[in-house]
């Protein structure tokens, strides 16, 4: 039975973070029902309000960034110039009525502002406080800043991505969002602990480490055998064929992966039992891997005469794993995704109709939901300072004039 209840109902999160890694973490909490209050200020505008890191496009105003909208759905927004002592006081008062605080400034910045874990745990003993940074808040390079490509480079993942005869690839926003998901996981784990014991705690999250743990097995190849593996395109250590093959079309590709002899025979059958496919050197996984390049060449000669959707249909019917390399355009026209309601249309007061991705998991009893567009700049000053902190309108206005709420 579906209720409008959500897993993190009643949890309040104070979000001091910016750009991608921090905000996406609190976005996940917000989708799960937490009340997330973003703290911004004109002195330090969240970069994603200004320009798109990917397209370089500059937005006309604070509230017309599609990127900002996607990363801050369901949240509330207030302004506080943390450079001012009064703002710090207000922030602390907010923390007393919150459960989680999150920040991704350079390590040490929040401590200097008086908003470090020690300071906040005095006003809220069981606060759960996560600080996320490029290399973690301890160690020789704790002060180093970094963005997604940096995490990929330092963690070793970039050296594993790209063509074997091409440069490494530092990937894009995905790295931030993997790190952010890890932060969200750690926070909720701490919330579970607190639900049982009443105890909060400090969580020090290193983004580059959060990427290294996703290639733990490759790192262990080094710790065990002193071997430093290198990028090799789509290829796999064992499975062959295991690559993308060009199909009929402008830039259309199909990924095909075959793990055993049974799937190989089904594949050979599905593509019409061509002579080359019966050659002895392709008859088991070991020999296929040894003759991988020639095998890729021969398979491409077949896939090029079919569209990627025809190939997927033919091979999946034969029980062979084949999925096109979908572009974003393909995804938004895909029947499967449509049926699963993968995207949501949202009315934004400034930008009008925008499309965002729905939460990626379907919970039967307390489903995650998108309840509103990202907040306009300072949209909830009155609600937070007035209703939550019980301040009068006058107090709020004077603070605005003093550019405390600014």
């Amino acid at each position, binding site marked *: 039975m579906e209720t409008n209840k959500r*897993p993190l109902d009643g949890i309040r999160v104070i979000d001091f973070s910016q750009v991608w890694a921090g905000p996406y973490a609190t976005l996940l909490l917000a989708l799960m029902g937490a009340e997330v209050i973003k703290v911004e200020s004109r002195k330090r505008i969240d970069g994603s309000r200004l320009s798109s890191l*990917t*397209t*370089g496009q*500059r937005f006309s105003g604070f509230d017309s960034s*599609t990127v900002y909208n*996607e990363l801050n759905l369901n949240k509330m927004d207030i302004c506080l110039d943390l450079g001012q002592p009064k703002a710090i006081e207000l922030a602390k008062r907010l923390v007393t009525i919150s459960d989680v605080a999150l920040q991704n400034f350079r390590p040490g910045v929040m401590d200097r502002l008086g908003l470090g874990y020690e300071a906040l745990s005095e006003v809220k003993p069981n606060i759960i406080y996560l600080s996320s940074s490029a290399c*973690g808040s301890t160690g020789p390079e704790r*002060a*180093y800043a970094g963005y997604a490509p940096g995490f990929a*480079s*330092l*963690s*070793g*993942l970039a*050296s594993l*991505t790209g063509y074997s005869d091409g440069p490494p*690839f*530092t*990937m*894009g926003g*995905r790295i931030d969002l*993997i790190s952010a998901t890890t932060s969200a996981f*750690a926070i909720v784990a701490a919330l*579970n*602990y607190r639900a*049982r*014991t009443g105890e909060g705690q*400090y*969580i020090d999250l290193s983004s580059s*480490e959060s990427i*290294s*743990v996703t290639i733990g*097995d490759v*790192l*262990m190849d080094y*710790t*065990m*055998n002193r*071997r430093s593996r290198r990028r090799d*395109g789509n290829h796999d250590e064992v*499975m062959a064929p*295991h*690559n993308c093959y*060009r199909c009929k079309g402008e830039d259309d*590709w199909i*990924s095909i992966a075959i793990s055993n002899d049974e799937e190989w025979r089904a594949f050979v059958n599905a593509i019409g039992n061509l002579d080359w496919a019966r050659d002895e050197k392709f008859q088991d996984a070991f020999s296929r891997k040894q003759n991988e390049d020639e095998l890729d060449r021969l398979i491409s000669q077949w896939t090029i005469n079919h569209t990627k959707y025809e190939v997927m249909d033919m091979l999946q019917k034969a029980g062979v794993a084949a999925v096109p*390399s979908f*572009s*974003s*355009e*393909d995804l*938004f026209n895909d029947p*499967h995704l449509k049926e699963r309601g993968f995207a949501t249309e949202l009315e934004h007061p400034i930008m009008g109709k925008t*499309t965002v991705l729905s939460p*990626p998991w*379907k*919970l039967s*009893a*307390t489903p995650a939901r998108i309840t509103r567009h990202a907040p306009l700049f300072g949209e909830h000053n009155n609600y937070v300072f007035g209703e939550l902190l019980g301040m009068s309108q006058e107090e709020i206005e004077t603070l605005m004039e003093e550019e405390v709420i600014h």
Partner: protein
Amino acid sequence: MSEKALEGTKVLEYASFISGPYCSKLLADLGAEVIKIERTGVGDEARRRGPFLGDIPHPERSGLFLYLNTNKKGITLDPETQTGRKIFLELVRWADILIEDKPPKEMEELGFTYDKLKEINPQLIMTSITPFGQTGPYRDYKAYPLNVVHGAGSGYLAPGGSQNLEREPVKSTSFSDDAACGISAAFATICALLPRWSTGVGQYIDVSKQEALMAMDQVELCQYPNEGKVASRKVDPRMAIRVTPCKDGDMMIIAMDDRQWKGLVSMMDEPEWTKDEIFKDILSRMQHMGEMLKNVAPWAMQHTRDEMYHTGQERGAPVAPIRSIEEAANWQQFKERDFFVEIDHPKAGRISYPSAPYKLSKTPWEGGAAPLLGQHNEEVYSTLLGYSKEDIVMMREAGVI
């Protein structure tokens, strides 16, 4: 012995290879009691994959398996036999959480759908992780990690800034993306666990790996519906970021805002060309990244990555060296933060494992050995479920366990 965040949480894992086991590893490493079911005789496929300790391909020496299954209890069971099914349901009754990754049809045939298991354990949280989720036309499609990455649109974007579109889009040469699906599933799972402490409500979580990965690229993907722009590997995903070769490898340089551009300029000791008009603001810099790279390259060839990294960072340029696996494994920062932890394993001996990216002050991450195949049969079947020794021998001979 420090406290454990998920102490007392009981997890049953009926999954293999990467996503499922990584999801329950995240819970196990924070103190949840995880019982991992492996198929009799052969066990988890990961046991058959390298890297193998000393290149000796032994099922108990696979680094992949050892890493993905720390802190778990391992039993062998064949749930397709009648008695195997009965035992599986007994374990479901015991568990708070069930994590599984079998094809939807297979679970239906075994009678392990959420509706059936809910009757046995109303408070059960059941997380199903499959390539395309439990509904929709691709529900029963087969997809290995390669296919999921390309099916989620991530592959199409890589390698960014690729000059030659004749070459195929690629995934990274690792199971990084499959692990990311595991993290996403773990997050949803313990979110569902939180209200359970008070309300006791159980529920079903349908995780489609395709959608979990799409969520990680949502900014690039949503450019299409919102800006009519199809992101692809033709363009570097980040305008202001480039990779330049240097004396001893490749360096990631970055100039997104004025502060960073100043840091970059300072790192290179204010060379003349940086004063050129085309570099005066963000927008024009992004349009002239090509020229910038052409100028940076000769300078970079005289400097090592570490020189650029340390001077750059000190002067506000968040540049980063592209490190090989060996260099990453020996990174001083990792050493200082004890990122690598040595764990003892009865068959593989003492090896160092990557630990966790989060340091929880009260309930820290703790390493523990992955199970030998069927190592905890005795403990689970007799102490936990109360079968006699004789029954266990007969069940082994009957191929049930």
